[in-house]
């Protein structure tokens, strides 16, 4: 890290006015899971899975979301789809606050937003044939006649690289990569605008990963899809994403265009994360930043900056001031006191 302090004034809060152009906007999104115990199921604490996230997803882009296990990235993906109800905050989809939607409105909206899961083994019903798994979204939304639906299922299978002969088979008859293709076909059945892909290739074998990544990119071009691509594999994210958001303990700590994030990471956590990825070239010997200790529990995140317990550059004020996410260069936001004059961005010079 160069240690340059960016002191130029920047908007204190991310611009909410851009909501018109963005497909999805999250505002101060919070999801706390209660931890209960004891005889009466008393609340003992709260897991702060998503802890005040401001984020927007532009139409047609792939927004990569990275972070380590337990950082809240999967919960964030599910809250955006309203598969999990947030504790507080707003989610706008095409400018509409979807948290106010009734059940009926929400069901209609579900056609526009779909999810692909990590584990192709547990996300498909083992007792249903491929035809009924892929056709189910169409049947639920009563799209077309039975015959039309069947034709559409065939088309979908063709799109993801499966064939007619697979129609009457069951999930266990397929390999992991093929199962992921079935999951992708199901997600595409309703022609959605947004697809949340939650670790879609991390359970796949190496030679199969590339096949599925290429497929996802082809489909994005063909159907103008917007992806929220959740992954912990940074090389996959660098390849597929237009912009990348880095999460740590329920918060976005850095967000930037992909090239910029990988070439000029500003948050010490991003820097450590990038340096920890092993490089497939034995000739390059790079300096690896070894972070001390484990990720703290999201039940009792440290005060101030939640990364200060592991940060190699932590200053005294990092223990007290919770750094806001500030835009320090066009499109590059970072939540780190080292990177801006924090007194300008934190009310009263102190914050919770």
């Amino acid at each position, binding site marked *: 890290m160069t240690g340059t302090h960016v002191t130029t004034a920047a908007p204190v809060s991310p611009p909410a006015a851009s909501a018109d152009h963005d497909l999805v906007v999250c505002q101060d999104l919070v999801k706390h899971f209660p931890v209960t115990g004891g005889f009466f199921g008393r609340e003992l604490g709260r897991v702060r899975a998503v802890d005040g996230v401001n984020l927007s997803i532009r139409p047609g882009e792939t927004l990569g979301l990275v972070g380590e296990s337990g950082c809240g990235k999967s919960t964030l993906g599910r809250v955006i789809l309203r598969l999990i109800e947030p504790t507080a905050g707003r989610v706008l989809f095409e400018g509409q606050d979807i948290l106010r939607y009734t059940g009926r409105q929400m069901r209609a909206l579900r056609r526009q937003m779909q999810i692909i899961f990590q584990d192709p083994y547990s996300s498909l019903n083992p007792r249903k044939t491929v035809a009924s798994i892929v056709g189910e979204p169409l049947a639920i939304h009563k799209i077309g006649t039975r015959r039309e639906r069947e034709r559409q299922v065939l088309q979908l299978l063709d799109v993801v690289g499966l064939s007619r002969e697979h129609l009457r088979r069951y999930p266990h008859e397929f390999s992991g990569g093929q199962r992921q293709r079935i999951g992708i076909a199901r997600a595409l059945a309703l022609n959605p605008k947004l697809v949340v892909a939650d670790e879609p290739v991390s359970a796949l074998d*190496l*030679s199969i*990963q590339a096949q599925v990544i290429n497929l996802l990119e082809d489909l994005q071009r063909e159907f103008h899809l917007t992806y929220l691509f959740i992954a912990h594999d*940074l090389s996959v994210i*660098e*390849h597929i994403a237009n912009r990348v958001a880095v999460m740590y303990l329920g918060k976005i700590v850095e967000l930037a265009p992909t090239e910029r994030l*990988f070439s000029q990471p500003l948050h010490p956590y991003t820097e450590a994360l990038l340096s920890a990825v*092993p*490089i497939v070239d034995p000739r390059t010997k790079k300096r690896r930043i070894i972070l001390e*200790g484990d990720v703290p529990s999201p039940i009792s995140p440290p005060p101030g900056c939640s990364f200060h317990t592991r940060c190699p550059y932590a200053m005294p004020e990092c223990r007290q001031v919770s750094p806001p996410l500030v835009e320090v260069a066009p499109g590059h936001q970072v939540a780190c006191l080292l990177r801006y004059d924090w007194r300008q961005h934190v009310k009263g010079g102190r914050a919770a």
Partner: protein
Amino acid sequence: MAKSLLSIEELRTHFFTDEGVVRAVDGVSVSLDEGDTLGLVGESGCGKTMTALSILRLVPSPPGRIVGGRISFDGRDLLNLPEPARRKIRGNEISMIFQEPMTSLNPVFRVGDQIAEAVRLHQKVGKRAAWDRTVEMLQKVGIPAPERRAREYPHQLSGGMRQRVMIAMALSCNPRLMSADEPTTALDVTIQAQILDLIERLKDEIGMSVILITHNLGIVAETARHVAVMYAGKIVEYADVQTLFGNPQHPYTIGLLRSLPRRGASARRERLEVIPGLVPSLQALPPGCKFNPRCKEVIAQCREEEPELKPIEPGHLVRCLRR
């Protein structure tokens, strides 16, 4: 010239199932010098784990059985050693760590007791000395407050800590060979970096050799000195790490390396090269070269003739008719 520690010759470990014989390890020959790190890479089902388990005779039996080959460790023939003698080697001179530390630790015993048990068993020392050694090992693997942590149960530790406990246990008897099967696959990257760093440091300190089993080519590139690439129960390419990554020769190795998303701006959003087809089922392997249905350089001969693992230059072995 370093002294050879382990030599595996024509190892065959087969599984006898209702659906037929599965040749999980089908003629593997590889050797390892003292102080060397051998990376064993390949996709699921390629036989890398079974090769390592065969060394310790830990292959689940039935249905598995070592049906052929020789494994010699420091001059001793491991496959024909009587069980008591083998038990003295296992966990003592040769130890192993596994991918999922939670399933390899006993949940109802304190972690310290589990390490101390191994020490007492192999080192013939008393309770007190074994416990001291345990705390020393936990400290060595970087566990803070080792005295206290030793008295905790596995569920009280994080994934990274549990893997450190496993490493402490594996190293407690100063083994000469450690085989690590996907030791960091279940861990986050920042924790993975800690663990790899730790293995590297302790390897030099103790002077042991390591067999590192992984599907992650980046980890192999950074930690191994020699690499064996496995496909469908066979080694298809073997070389030192520089050669393997700089001048790969087997079409499968080449394909794997090309299918990885490349780092750097130039490669972004560029189509990835793929190896077509599926990872083969060991029950339905093609005749001839096992890779021929997915190979870009296939010729008619590949479908009939099984290639042998041959040197194309000193120290660089390839199993391909086209080389």
